[in-house]
């Protein structure tokens, strides 16, 4: 078995020591720090990205909150504006209705007065006619010539009776 031949034991141990020491020192001082740097850099990058994403998310939430606040504010303002306008319009309408009522009342009063006046005039005319007819009728029937005032009195008294 060549493994148990001590001829090259020293040589093997020597070169093992040389190469393994070299490997250990090289990896320890050069290779492993490099890999560790890369891994740390990557982890740092990931952490940074995560934290910036978190920050951005918070900002987005803040913005959303603001938008909602402004939206509700605007809604409230709009509804108040609508209410105000409705009230104003109602006031205007009632004012216009009032003035219209006044005008109508005045017009009605005027019309009533005119009607009364017309009625009086007509009544006068009617009385006159009645007097004339009565006078003419009496003259035809009895040749009596009654003065106007007597006839008028009679008619008036009659009217008084009839009423």
């Amino acid at each position: 078995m060549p493994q148990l031949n001590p001829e090259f034991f020293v040589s093997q141990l020597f070169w093992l020591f040389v190469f393994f020491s070299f490997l250990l020192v090289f990896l320890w001082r050069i290779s492993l720090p490099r890999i560790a740097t890369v891994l740390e850099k990557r982890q740092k990058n990931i952490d940074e990205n995560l934290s910036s994403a978190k920050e951005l998310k918070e900002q987005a939430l803040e913005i959303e909150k603001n938008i909602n606040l402004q939206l509700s504010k605007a809604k409230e303002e709009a509804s108040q504006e609508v209410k105000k306008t409705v009230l104003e319009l109602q006031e205007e309408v009632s004012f216009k209705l009032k003035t219209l009522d006044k005008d109508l009342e005045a017009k009605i009063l005027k019309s009533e007065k005119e009607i009364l006046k017309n009625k009086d005039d007509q009544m006068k005319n009617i009385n006159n006619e009645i007097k004339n007819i009565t006078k003419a009728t009496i003259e035809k029937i009895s040749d009596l010539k009654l003065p106007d005032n007597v006839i008028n009195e009679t008619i008036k008294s009659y009217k008084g009776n009839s009423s």
Partner: protein
Amino acid sequence: MAAKDSPLKQFEIDPISNIELGGYNISFTNSSFAMLITVLVITLFLTLTVNTRSIVPTRMQLISELMYNFIAQLLSDTVGDNGKKYFPFVFSLFMFVLIGNMVGMIPYQFTFTSHIIVTFALATIVFIGVTILGFMNHGLKFFSFFIIPGVPFYMHPLLIPIEVISYLSRPISLSVRLFANMLAGHTLLKVFASFVVSMSFFGIFPLAFIVALTGLEILIAFLQAYVFAILTCLYINDAYHLH
């Protein structure tokens, strides 16, 4: 079977250049050459793939990072925060054994992990290091490691020697496990390879078996490196937490 065709011939050491230092033969051999290739592969791979240091890794960089994270995870799982200091050592050990095993899987390439002297030296480094660590952390209280808590005192004369023996046999079990796995695997491959030639046409069956066995051997190459690394981690953990 002629010595030329022995399945153990692949483990023979051939000096490439004869060097002598202080009366000792430290020839650069095929074993040393395999170690050189292993170290070159590891250092070049881990350096060149991470050269760009890009945040979004290339495929090769990803392999280096995976290896790094694999051992870092292993160490933090077994030892915890104390283990960070030993990361370069455990990582080097793992990579050295892993790539050493893998280089051995290349046909006609020497497998230095199939030599007990090499694996025993590596295991001894771990053993001595861990023992020193245990004394540094606990002083003489380290000897309480051999006293199992909760055992009746009259059992101690029996159990303490067993514990001591089991502790002392750690480097042996650690090194023999790796050495024997590599030895057996490569010997088996070689035996079946000789069948391919001797069975002429029917040699296709052992050939198919070799293909399957090579896959298994690559798995074992990884597994043994992993076992070596995880046991080192466990021993380091023992040096911190005695029980």
